């Protein structure tokens, strides 16, 4: 069975990548194949990378407060490329009040500060490879 492939991406101009990198390593240690985009990716660049890399999951890390703009646009860019089944999750400083709106826009789950990386790994396993 092929490994779960995941794109870890930093949308927007935010330079805080500690979380993205720690999570990327945790995903790798959990047996996923991980591609990291680096900083300053536009929604279209992220969607294009997801297409090229043929990933199952896109994990978006954002702490700049631009999530309400950039996360729905990233989902739309993915869907516009026919990537209907790619699971999209997000992590970062995202106020609880914004989460319902993000979920309605197609973000499957939002992991906020203090979440153990294991919880994100487990969520992804359950959703990508339901038992």
């Amino acid at each position, binding site marked *: 069975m092929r490994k779960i492939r995941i794109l870890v991406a930093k949308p927007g101009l935010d330079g805080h990548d*500690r979380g993205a990198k720690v999570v990327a390593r945790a995903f790798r240690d959990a047996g996923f194949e991980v591609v990291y985009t680096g900083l300053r990716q536009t929604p279209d660049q992220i969607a294009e990378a997801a297409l090229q890399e043929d990933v199952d999951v896109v994990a978006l890390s954002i702490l700049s407060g631009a999530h309400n703009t950039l996360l729905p646009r990233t989902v739309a860019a993915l869907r516009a490329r026919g990537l209907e089944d790619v699971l999209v999750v997000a992590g970062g400083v995202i106020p609880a009040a914004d989460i319902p709106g993000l979920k309605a826009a197609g973000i499957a789950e939002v992991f906020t500060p203090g979440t153990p990386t294991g919880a994100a790994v487990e969520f992804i396993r359950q959703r990508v490879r339901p038992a």
Partner: protein
Amino acid sequence: MSDARDRIAAEQERWHKQTVAPALARFPEQKAEFTTNSGVPVQRLYTPADVSIDYLHDLGFPGEYPFTRGVQPTMYRGRFWTMRQYAGYGTAEESNARYRYLLENGQSGLSVAFDLPTQIGYDSDSPYAEGEVGKVGVAIDTLADMETLLDGIPLDKVSTSMTINAPAAVLLAMYIAVAEKQGVRPSQLAGTIQNDILKEYAARGTYIFPPEPSMRLITDIFAYCAREVPRWNTISISGYHIREAGATAAQEVGFTLANGIAYVEAAIRAGLPVDTFAPQLSFFFNAHNDFFEEVAKFRAARRLWARIMRERFKAQNPKSWMLRFHTQTGGSTLTAQQPMNNIVRVTLQAFAAVCGGTQSLHTNSMDEALALPTEESVRVALRTQQIIAYESGVAGTIDPLAGSYYVEHLTSEIERQAQAYIAKIDEMGGAVRAIERGFMQREIQEAAYQYQRQVESGERVIVGVNRFQVEEPPPTNLLTVDPAVQEAQQRKLADVKARRDQAAVDRALAGLRAAAAGTDNLMPPILAAVKAYATLQEICDVLRDVFGEYQPTEEL
């Protein structure tokens, strides 16, 4: 002395057998090994036998080499540290109101937060700015925004710190231009620009240009300010973000001072004698939770920098030897869970910064793991500093923890570890090469990952996160930035562009282009462009065109 040390060591041996061992047999200690937050081994007890310092050589007196005990002769007995809260969001009008609020509440200096487009040289109408305008700081597109931001603030009386790096020259030029309109001369201005590009590559991410032209911009600022703006701190060499990204305390000191060495070397290569610019260098450190380790870190950094400047660079002016620094409490230590607990964390961290002899301090607000801080939580953070200053008694004597066997031992240990990092970076050809090769980034990432694993295994306890949790409702009363800010800012920009003298802008930008392609100091043409109301992005685009853009190497 060595006789006394031997006697103490022998007595300690006896104490262990006679008193400790039986106690351990009944009550084992909580763990086999104790370490500081950064992993430095910690013994059960420290005695004079563990401290191998020569008082006059290694500690000395405040205001004198090697400045271990502080950079000023009287420290806080003369004047408290500057209470400087980093603030800014939304429009220049809103931020101006926040600054006035803070000054009215007893803050003693300003600290300007810019939004990400401003920090990366994009105007508010750039496609890259979409969703980011006014979010993590204030949006500044032209001199007109800066005029609004500083309206009614007397620039000859207030010192201002600006967290701006790649486009630091542009924002400094705008500040100088606003001051001139207030009738304040550049020589009267006091403040700081961060202007530390190396840590942007290594940890913070708001770079624009490649290293070589970036270093030129920085040394041009050194040269210009030495002549024209002598009270300005031309750089704030920052360990803060390196630590936030995951580094240990010793890495924070080692990498920051290695970056400092790179700036000094670049300026000397550009023909500046060391004592002309070194007194205007300043530093910026983090304060995390391990109180004693943090105090030791500040002391170690001061001693090490003094020795580097005097011995390695042969600086003669004592001001060139002094490591003056700003401290901010550790944003990454704050928890989204039970946010009130963060007030206690910030108090510990701020107290460490003061015991470590900081020149200025930002205390984080309790709600920063959730959103931008509200006015109320910023006030509590400022009050924390005021309570330390006025009620704790810490300001009464200088460097109060000196002589603690533990603190002196840790000071020497952090200095030793930091020195080892600097030696390793020197071997690689200096900080610029070490960053290009990804060395600092890998070290930081590794430390961040180990930290996270310790938290998840429960080996490292974070109160409210992996122990002592409670069910809590989602927090309310968070500050949000109105999405209308972006449109308002774009309208204001369009208006400035319509009203300015376009021919003058074109001339100024052509002058800048010529200077960038040649070797003239870039500050005068940038100042001319700013005064003609050229936008931040127009100026940065000229430089992008001539200099190119930095391409990071990402690895995991």
